[in-house]
């Protein structure tokens, strides 16, 4: 199963430990995380369900490209990192 981990900057605000979840896209994997930890969703996604402007997601070290639909594919061994972009200060 893909493994999802969050930046410590986010863990300061909301409980979001690393977890393994089902899912073949970033969206589906994150949705599983949000089922376990509902408060996390609005920290990562904006009102329209897109990735927040100053949040970035890496899949096996490669930056995710579809910031609107989060349709980038992930595999069973993928490591998904949710980070804060330095553009946000």
């Amino acid at each position, binding site marked *: 199963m893909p493994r999802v981990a969050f930046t410590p900057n986010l863990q300061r605000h909301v409980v979001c430990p690393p977890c393994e979840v089902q899912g073949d896209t970033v969206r589906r994997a994150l949705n599983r995380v949000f089922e376990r930890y509902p408060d996390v969703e*609005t*920290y*990562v996604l904006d*009102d*329209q369900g897109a990735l927040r402007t100053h*949040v970035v997601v890496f899949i096996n070290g490669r930056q995710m490209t579809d910031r609107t639909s989060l349709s980038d594919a992930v595999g069973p061994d993928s490591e998904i990192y949710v980070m804060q972009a330095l553009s946000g200060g």
Partner: protein
Amino acid sequence: MSGRLLVATRKGLFTVGEARGTWSVLDSAFLGDNVSMILPLPDGTVIAALDHGHFGVKLHRSRDSGTTWDIRPAPAFPPKPEDVEDLDPTRGTSIPWVVQRVWALERDHRTGTLWCGTIPGGLFRSFDEGDTWQLVESLWHEPKRKEWFGGGADLPGIHSVCLDPRRAERVVVGVSCGGVWVTEDDGRTWACRAHGMRANYMPPERAFDPHIQDPHRVVQCRAQPEVFWAAHHNGIFVSTDDVGSWTEVTTAKPSAFGFTVAVHPTDPDTAWFVPAMSDERRVPVDGRVVVSRTRDGGATFEVLDRGLPQSHAYDIAYRHALDIDASGSTLAFGTTTGSLWTSDDQGDSWIAVSTHLPPIYAVRFVDGE
């Protein structure tokens, strides 16, 4: 004399208390986090709006005067239909239907309804003390809303929500930049009421266009609610006819430029401002921090400087950083350089509570209605 004051800053929320005539910082919350707005209520409930930058806008609610906090859902825009075009008129870029800052929080103490103004220019209501929020769609979908543009921020926003003490159905909101809007029917319909306001930042033929005015802050006199004061981008304006019209006040000293205004709760002719030089140079005139006060509806002004720094001081007070308590005797204001002053004699003299807080966005007395 009031006993408590909440101070929302770039780096946390601070509780300031008064004991035997001395005000001091008592406590902090959300240290390190950006607190854009605060709403203290008489029953000990406090609502704090945080802007985490990377992680968005959040609302926290305390039921015990700020001792403990729970995160509550923040106002959020509904899904934007794909066929809707919503462009910023200044830049031609898309207005994001994403709350970027909570810029106003008020509660109607008759109905319990919470009102929230945001950047971009959304107005939201909560009928359940902040557990859920609904966008006031009538204003959001008002065609003239699409003429609003940013003032002080990239995107337009609602910073002032005046809840009419006579009728809960009447609400006045101030928009930077988009004028002053009023509903008489509990938000079903809206009308722009900024006639008389003047905008130097527009071509002359549009200077008096109500829809492009930039009232930095709009306040309403509680006892005589037909009187409103506005600190506007181009000066001071007063309305004595329920925002039917506005009159420019040109007598203010040392300057009419500023962001904030407070009106006395029972005397509509008495109002306070924290002036700066001008739009082009946003520092105190001559490096002297002063408060200006009118007691005659704007005919004349006094310059109040006792207790305030009078040499090389560059404090600026933002829109929500000046407040007056319910009695009308105690005032407080905070500044971008982290200074906080209080006055227990209607501004005649000021005492520094601190000069090294984080940049201050909002100060509010905890005294209720």
